[in-house]
């Protein structure tokens, strides 16, 4: 199982600090990393290696926790413990901070861009999720402040094709939001995890959502629309989400990140036991009760906690990971024979 994940390169992305997060740009040619050294670095492939193309060091006063590329690839948003979110505009190899979004009371934990490119979501330890609208003049306006969670909100992501938002929290739940009339509302709460939910990832179709937690499990949730064949009860016109699979017994410590590959359907996880794991759905399994097999397990992928795993959006099998040890690593995943 070690052979399913081959190391391509290891890069000291944020030396003497921790690397918190990685994000590939939409074309898969650039990787943004961010860390405890308060900087963001942009990496590009040169030959067999990865080189740092830019360092965005003046944007934040504290740790940069997450970064997210706009769907067009021309903008990068960064979420920081300094309670702000910076929007950077790309001009060839240079990035310029064009706006700083303020409003959260304390650390911003995550930022995500909607597929349309005109909406942005942020979340914070202040327990809220904010939805921002951006217009053609690069003006940002907060259109909703959602106070559904009862604790620190760790992560937000948008559905791949619908204007649907999901958030993960220290309150052990996942919440889903959509626009209703002129405001955003929470229409579903996914309960089941027994501790903090750290991250989320939608499958390529957007019908399923993976969540990972401090309870050392990964859960797969499925959306059931009103009038569904399976007879799952829905509340009025809102879809219901049910937990259809729990991956337990695989991770020995907190699972910090989960990433669903939109090219291959493989599910990668980043764990506090320093390992990277990949799961694939058994082809013959029932879509309503799927079973996943562990197809790769690399202990000591890093020398400390793995914080993030990110599949390249264009190159199948290319996985990037980063760790508390400040390093970033690139891997080639090959599904083992006979699956």
């Amino acid at each position, binding site marked *: 199982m070690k052979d399913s994940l081959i190391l391509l390169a290891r890069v000291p992305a944020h030396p003497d600090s*921790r690397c918190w997060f990685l994000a590939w740009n939409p074309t898969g040619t650039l990787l943004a990393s961010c860390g405890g050294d308060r900087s963001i670095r942009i990496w590009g492939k040169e030959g067999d290696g990865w080189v740092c193309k830019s360092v965005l060091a003046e944007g934040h006063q504290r740790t940069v926790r997450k970064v997210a590329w706009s769907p067009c690839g021309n903008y990068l948003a960064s979420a920081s*413990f300094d309670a702000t979110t910076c929007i950077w505009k790309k001009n060839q190899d240079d990035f310029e901070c064009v706006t700083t979004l303020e409003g959260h009371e*304390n650390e911003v*934990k995550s930022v995500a861009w909607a597929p349309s490119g005109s909406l942005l979501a942020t979340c914070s330890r202040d327990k809220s999720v904010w939805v921002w609208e951006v217009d053609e003049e690069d003006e940002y306006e907060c259109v909703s402040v959602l106070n559904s969670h009862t604790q620190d909100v760790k992560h937000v992501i948008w559905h791949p094709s619908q204007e649907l938002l999901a958030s993960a929290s220290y309150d052990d739940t996942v919440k889903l939001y959509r626009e209703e009339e002129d405001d955003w509302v929470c229409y579903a709460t996914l309960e089941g995890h027994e501790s903090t939910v750290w991250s989320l990832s939608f499958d390529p179709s957007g019908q399923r959502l993976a969540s990972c937690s401090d309870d050392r499990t990964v859960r797969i949730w499925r959306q059931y629309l009103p009038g569904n064949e399976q007879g799952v009860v829905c509340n009025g016109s809102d879809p219901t989400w049910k937990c259809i699979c729990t991956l337990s017994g695989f991770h*020995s410590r907190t699972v910090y990140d989960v990433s669903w590959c939109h090219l291959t359907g493989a599910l990668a996880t980043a764990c*506090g*036991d320093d390992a990277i794991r990949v799961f694939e759905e058994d082809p013959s399994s029932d879509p309503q009760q799927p079973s996943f097999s562990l197809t790769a397990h690399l202990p000591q992928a890093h020398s400390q906690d793995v914080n993030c795993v990110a599949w390249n959006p264009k190159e199948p099998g290319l996985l990037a990971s980063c760790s508390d040890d400040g390093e970033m690593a690139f891997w080639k995943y090959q599904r083992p024979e006979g699956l």
Partner: protein
Amino acid sequence: MEQVSGLLSWALSRVLWLSGRSERGAARQPRIMEEKALEVYDIIRTIRDPEKPNTLEELEVVTESCVEVKEIHEEDYLVIIRFTPTVPHCSLATLIGLCLRVKLQRCLPFKHKLEIYISEGTHSTEEDINKQINDKERVAAAMENPNLREIVEQCVIEPD
């Protein structure tokens, strides 16, 4: 003898949480685990209490038997500390947890994963405090708060 029975009493309560890892580690090389535990204790005993002019050892917030070390795999250890705060005050308990984590992160020479808990029954909101002090993102953010950082630095500074 006291040390061993101390180790056993909370090994039992933690065995489910650690999903079977505990018995194997504890039984295999007890002397090495004891030595590692003492190494940990030597680092934490001199931490100063945030409020009083005494060390955590003097106030019995930590004791030798409150440290447990288990081997995860070769040269990699799980360190579990259960401390007893002097007063049932939330923010002080969290602060002590923070000091323990920061000092060990800086000073413990061997590769380790760290879990810090308030010893059971000593605090009304112990689950809430335990969750916070074991959330590394919360810990990292707290240490970027200049006021909190200053207090922690004063508590962990090595005595002359």
